[in-house]
């Protein structure tokens, strides 16, 4: 059952891979539309697994998940792309496509959504400028540094101004100055209504949190602050 103000609702959600132990146990979570939450916890606590549920890479083994008012358990496969287009994801390992240029990587969600290059070109160029990658627009990911890849991945995740942005360690490979700049970008997006979940170990980032921090410990979700 989803709350009308929440964009994501998890009730008693459990997740296991194959026949292994549950990596998430009885997770209950409501993400209010327009909220910005940090998700933290020790390595192996299940942060990435929780994010995988939220970006619809996995379905829970038990419990209920409702996203954008749709019950994920009963959602047919053909309904997934529509929901995924509302979600932006920054992967810890970037997941940039090496055979596409940085421009093409950032424009990928728009291209997949059927937009014409002429329609999105300016937006992509502007965003690349914002994340400091203008000069690499025609470069391919293998020639980028870790931080540059991170920024390209963030640009790809936010280019569609998604309703929900999920970021797994988005500032893990960038210097503190750029980390702050990226956080400003997230906050700007958040102001325009994007719900944001940032999984991070970075205590400096968490310090500025205005809403309770989600803490995962051994698959159990708690709140701090």
């Amino acid at each position, binding site marked *: 059952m989803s709350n009308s103000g929440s964009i994501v609702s998890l009730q008693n959600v459990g997740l296991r891979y194959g026949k292994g132990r549950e990596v998430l146990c009885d997770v209950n979570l409501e993400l209010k539309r327009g909220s910005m939450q940090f998700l933290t916890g020790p390595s192996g606590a299940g942060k990435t697994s929780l994010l995988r549920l939220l970006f619809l890479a996995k379905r829970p083994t038990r419990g209920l998940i409702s996203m954008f008012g749709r019950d994920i358990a009963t959602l047919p496969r053909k309904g997934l792309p529509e929901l995924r287009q509302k979600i932006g*994801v920054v992967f810890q390992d970037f997941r940039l496509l090496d055979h596409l240029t940085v421009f093409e990587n950032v424009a990928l969600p728009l291209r997949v959504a059927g937009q014409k*290059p002429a329609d999105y070109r300016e937006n992509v160029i502007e965003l*690349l400028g914002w994340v400091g990658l203008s000069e690499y627009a025609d470069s391919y990911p293998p020639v980028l540094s870790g931080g540059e890849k991170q920024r390209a991945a963030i640009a790809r995740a936010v280019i569609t101004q998604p309703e929900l942005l999920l970021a797994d360690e988005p500032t893990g490979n960038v210097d503190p100055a750029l980390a702050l700049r990226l956080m400003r970008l997230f906050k700007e997006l958040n102001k325009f209504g994007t719900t944001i979940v940032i999984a991070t170990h970075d205590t400096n980032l968490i310090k500025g949190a205005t809403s309770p921090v989600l803490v995962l410990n051994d698959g159990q979700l708690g709140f701090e602050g």
Partner: protein
Amino acid sequence: MSDKSKIKSSHKGVATNSLMPRTQMPLRTLMISMTVMCYLACLAIGALLLITRAVDDWTSEIAGEVTVQVRPTGDVAMKDKLVKAAALLKATKGITRVDVLDKSAGEKLLEPWLGNAEVLNQLPVPRLIAVGIDQVNPPDFEKLAKQLSLTVKGASLDTHRRWQSELTRMGSSLVWLGIGVLALITLSAVALVVFASRSALDVNREVVEVLHFVGASDQYIARQVQWQFLKAGLQSGLIGTLAGLVTFFLLGISSSVTSSNGLAEASYSLLIGAPEVTIASYLLFLLVPILTTLICLIAARLAILRILRNAI
């Protein structure tokens, strides 16, 4: 130079690369195998055409002629019997030609079994009458056979129908065999495409995952892959068919280089002969690249959609 102008001055800055990297597709192996399949399909089609035409020629030759055999009986002179039989045949409707063959024609037929002419001279060798038949309005063979046996003692009619039906049966068996070979080639081609599609998705698993995460549907991803398979299918179809045509062409012209033989002449007429024959041949050969392209497109799409159904 501003950031924007840097990009504008570059030739890119718009999405130009294929979403599925072509270099990582197992298309080269597929193309080689499909080219061989198409070549074999062309040979099978060519063989089918040659067999069908040969059987048609043989059966129409047989159907256009019957033979009357007049055995010597002793009581009536052979000459009289032949005159009587020829007269009866000439008077029969549906008969276009009556040729009384000389004695040596019958002896020639028996020579391989009975040896030289001296032996044959001592034997009562039957005489033969070759009878041309109007194939549109043939005579009533049963009635003619009866009339012959009644009018001319020792005369019998051989319509060659048994040989004709044997030939037709052999021809149709060979045609079915050819169709079976073509079906097996098609089946193998489908299996190859399915296997290659699976490999293509395996190799590009990460690309597929990212496309899914940014909201691509299974159909969208399948489209990205299937066009590459379509191109591969078209190329292999054209190369394989061209190789097949060259083979028949070389077979055809070999008759003018070496001594003339039936297969060479038939191959020649298949491609360079009368228009009514060559047009049909070329149309059938043209089906090979078209079907190959369709097989690649449809089999790849269905296989990819099936595999993606089990993806994330």
